[in-house]
């Protein structure tokens, strides 16, 4: 049985960087071949032949990270602050190469443009062991309402 304490510590660390947000330190948690995915439908299997809200590899994460803090990005003039609450952390799978598939339930309150909003999702993290901790190989955010009309979101969840 893998000790989930180190997994929990990593998820809490990621959440704390996103809450501030501090994307420079957040992106350092990810591997060079990582991707970040918010599918547009429930149980979406394919990020390439079906549209997604976000499907970024490391290159697009780097671009988005720079865009989020660019002084000429009008949509980012408003403060963005988040509060992640994480529960139900479960080990779904441990692969032969040591990579863990971790499922969690996350509720994120986002403060943006004079408005407080709630996002709820099931998160799937692929974690690659690095000695005492992990790096994130991928994160999949399964919103409970991916088909609904969405409001502008200018931060990673």
């Amino acid at each position, binding site marked *: 049985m893998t000790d989930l304490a180190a997994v929990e510590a990593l998820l809490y660390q990621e959440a704390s960087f996103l809450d501030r947000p501090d994307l420079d330190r957040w992106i350092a948690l990810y591997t060079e071949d990582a991707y970040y995915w918010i599918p547009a439908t429930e149980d979406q299997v394919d990020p390439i032949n*079906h549209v997604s*809200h976000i499907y970024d590899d490391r290159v697009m994460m780097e*671009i988005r990270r720079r865009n989020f803090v660019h002084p000429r990005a009008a949509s980012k003039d408003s403060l963005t602050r988040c509060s992640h609450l994480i529960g139900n952390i479960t080990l779904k799978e441990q692969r032969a190469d040591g990579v863990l598939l971790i499922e969690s339930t996350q509720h994120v309150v986002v403060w943006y443009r004079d408005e407080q909003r709630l996002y709820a999702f099931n998160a799937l993290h692929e974690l690659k062991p690095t000695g005492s901790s992990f790096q994130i190989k991928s994160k999949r955010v399964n919103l409970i309402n991916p088909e609904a009309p969405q409001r*502008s979101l200018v931060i990673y969840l």
Partner: protein
Amino acid sequence: MQPIPDRNFDALVKPTKLHRSLYTDPDIFDLEMSRIWGEAWIYIGHESQVPNSGDYFTTHINHNIPVVMIRDKDATVHVLHNRCGHKGAKVVDKQSGNVRGALRCAYHGWSYRFDGSLLKIPNEQGYEDTGFDASDPCYSMQPLAQVASYRGFVFATLSNTITDLVSWMGGAIACFDNLCDRAPEGEVEVAGGVLRYEHDCNWKFILENLNDTMHPMVVHESLVKAAEAYIATLPPEAAEQRREAEIIPPFGASYENFEDSGITGFDYGHHYDGGKTSIHANYTVDPDYHSAMVAAYGEARSREIYAFNTHNVLYYPSLTIKCAVQNIRVIRPISVDRFVVESWSFRLKGAPDSMLQRTLLYSRLINSAMGMVGPDDLEVYRRAQQGLQCPTSEWVEFHRQYGKDRTLTDRVEGGGTSDLDMRTQYRAWKAYMEQTPHRGTNND
């Protein structure tokens, strides 16, 4: 704000300026819903969304009238008012799906054929000798006043009197042809799902922005700079493989480039920018796609199809399409300061999967509510919605290149950075609001 007397639209729309109440007054919004959205041809969906008998897709034709598009047993696609002929309950509730046999109301079980005609009323003998006439269309699910389809794109209208769909589209129909001709098999189909994006501002802002070529280098500067700066750090061969490197930087194109693309306006408020060139003109042509095109059309005709390169085409007021990218955005107002945009993608039949994959990449980068272009556009619309509450000026101006538009037989052409698109839209807006839509022509 002074009350605007009905029919005095001359007081609201001038040749180079609009009254701010067009964006803020709920009474004007209500009039728009009945006189523009209740009169114009409104895009409903694509036939490929309902391939088999009983397949349906539901939407609204304006801010609140529910309709259902359904495929009949003889393959006809109907668009019906989504209302039971009995107590008025909406009959089909889900967004899409398939019904077997008949449409059935969830309340008292009245059922309807796929053409909307009444099939059966449970315990029907209670209606005997009551004067009830089951053949009266008011007890059926009634079809829209007019329904028509062009190359698979289904439109409907609440109006009995508006001219037929093809005449209504006029010269702008060439863009539907170009979108479909880009398929080696000459047909497109909906693929890869839909994104829905809620906008908290007046619906007209997005239409005005489609051919507003004075905004991209300002509004989207941050993305272009962020992308260029990071892509420059990549090895050249890695950068060349990034399709994002073709899609993002043209948003920062110069005023001169946009001026060269030109704007063309048509009757009934339709217009596009580009034609000879656009921000989509320099995309790499996938060699497998090109081979399939040449096999279907020959080299010269294929080049001709690629060369007609528009950016955004507006079929006023409900639909905007990108021929070169193969996606469309469908507009649906909700209230004076709210609307929803749906982004749909299309597969070019006979083209390699890479073409659809580029379309979907474009949609998630540019059109997604979590994308890097849409949120900056919405931000500036929203600021306009707020700023227009100021009573210091009653007007929104659009003078750019006024007096320089060139009027041809069926269209008006002008510079790519002109406000020709605004003049085209609001000529139509005023004509619809005055209930004389046929006068919304460029020769008026």
